[in-house]
């Protein structure tokens, strides 16, 4: 992946996410997040994961963020905009985040190498990414796949039960 594309994408992702978490209006934050997810999907494409790029756009930008947008618009949170944007302890929050960053930076050098697998870019290009992932998902990872479907079923039922109006 060339340096200019990486530089642009990383700058855009960081700037958009920082802008998103500092917005007062949640609608603006959600819209900024959608743009951020598109940049992230472009980065997945550049890393050769085109199936995940499509899933990122369909599920994250298309489903999850639209769900957020619905909830933000259904709930009337006009009065929230008047209040304080950050908690009073925000310097503590930023120092905790910085401390965690330094802590992880120290140990990342140790984990950057690993055993090379068999799916080189040439193999994936020849077989196509979706087919390769599908083969793995339906053979070696078929049990986690079924568990994932169960999780989604529980989420559907749970969301309806939690959000429906109490009858009587």
């Amino acid at each position, binding site marked *: 992946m060339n340096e200019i594309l990486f530089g642009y994408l990383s700058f855009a992702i960081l700037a958009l996410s920082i802008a998103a*978490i500092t917005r007062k209006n949640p609608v603006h934050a959600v819209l900024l997040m959608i743009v951020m997810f598109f940049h992230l999907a472009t980065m997945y494409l550049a890393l050769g994961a085109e199936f*995940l790029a499509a899933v990122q756009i369909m*599920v994250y930008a298309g489903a999850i963020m639209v769900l957020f947008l619905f909830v933000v618009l259904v709930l009337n949170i006009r009065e929230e905009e008047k209040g304080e944007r950050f908690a009073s302890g925000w310097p503590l929050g930023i120092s905790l985040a910085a401390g965690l960053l330094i802590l*992880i930076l120290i140990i990342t050098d140790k984990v950057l190498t690993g055993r090379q*697998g068999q*799916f080189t870019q040439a193999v994936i290009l020849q077989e196509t990414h979706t087919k390769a*992932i599908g083969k793995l998902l339906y053979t070696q990872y078929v049990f986690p796949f079924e568990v994932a479907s169960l*999780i*989604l079923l529980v989420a559907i039922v749970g969301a309806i039960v939690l959000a429906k109006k109490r009858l009587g």
Partner: protein
Amino acid sequence: MVSLQWYVWLSLTLFMVGVFGFLTRRNIIMMFLSIEIMLNAVNLSLVSFSHFLNDLRGNIIVFFVITVAAAEAAIGLAILIALFRNRASANVDELKEMKG
């Protein structure tokens, strides 16, 4: 060619943006958005490791993370709606019934 180190740094910084947002914002919707940012940071590092180590298992994990994120968002927002029906506030500092 951008090395794996740069991707890990980007992913870390993105994760810390999420941590900062989660720790400091008091609006529960913004806290959910921060969780999504953190999940995406982890996904980015998994995809880049998967690319540089020539192994597709990272991509499989990302697939499951996205599934769980969708379930989490649906349940979380349903709880938020139920909460809002009773309290009419999305500020987590006002939810202190269970304080000991």
